[in-house]
């Protein structure tokens, strides 16, 4: 029963955070809300009995992919405007919203962890089953995913390298 209540809370947090992310003017503010939204979806994954998917969601989505976003926004470099913005970001109005939503998720997490027979779904699909399936019937999909990642690596390297090179040349010619 508790599980169902938790699901609705997490779903509400996810929806609110996503709406806020889509309507922010500042990219970094939107990113913070987007991370909260991903955390909420991870909680939902945990509640419906997919703890491995929840961990992957946090590590890869909220961790790796969002860090990529942050890097690129920082690389686009706001200049002197950046300092003013940095000072503005320390005002509580900016981070209060995401913080409150995250605290709701944290309270859920603490309650779930505190109770050993806690409100996790009755039958979780374990990571072992997923792994057996991944390298059994789905092994071709894994190969294709590997090739996709390689293509992504080469593509992004190509685009990024030209960006850096041209920057270098322009600097050289201006000096």
């Amino acid at each position, binding site marked *: 029963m508790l599980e169902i209540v938790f699901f609705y809370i997490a*779903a509400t947090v996810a929806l609110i955070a996503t709406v806020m992310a889509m309507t922010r003017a500042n990219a970094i503010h939107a990113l913070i809300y987007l991370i909260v939204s991903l955390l909420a979806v991870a909680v939902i994954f945990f509640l*419906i009995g997919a703890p491995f998917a929840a961990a992957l969601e946090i590590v890869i989505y909220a961790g790796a*992919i969002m860090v990529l976003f942050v890097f690129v926004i920082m690389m686009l470099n706001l200049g002197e405007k950046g300092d003013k913005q940095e000072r503005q970001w320390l005002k509580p109005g900016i981070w209060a919203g995401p913080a409150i939503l995250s605290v709701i998720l944290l309270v859920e997490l603490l309650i779930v962890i505190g109770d050993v027979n806690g409100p996790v779904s009755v039958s979780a*699909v374990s990571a072992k089953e997923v792994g057996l399936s991944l390298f059994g019937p789905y092994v071709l999909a894994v190969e294709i995913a590997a090739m996709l990642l390689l293509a992504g690596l080469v593509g992004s390297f190509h685009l990024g390298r030209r960006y850096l090179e041209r*920057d270098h040349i322009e600097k050289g010619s201006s000096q």
Partner: protein
Amino acid sequence: MDGLNIPLNHILLVSSLLFAIGMLGLMIRRNIIFILMSLEVMLNAAALAFVAAGAHWEQPDGQVVFMLILTVAAAEVAVGLGLVLQVQKRFKTLDMDHANRMQG
């Protein structure tokens, strides 16, 4: 059959709402960073639907597809952000309406 205490309908509803918000964001925003974020939200919503269905029928296939979606999202974001750098370099703006002509 049902390995889930939460009604599947409600999870699918949340998933479709997230997808709709992502799609709305994709349509109303012109900044390429926000367009990429909306794509992330949409992929995430699709992944939620897959995992929920997998949990409902107690099959691992849902999480397998979730991992494939994760791969696609990672590759898409890497190339997309590379393009963001190029667009910023070339047009000095992130507004996609300035970059809607091909160089034919």
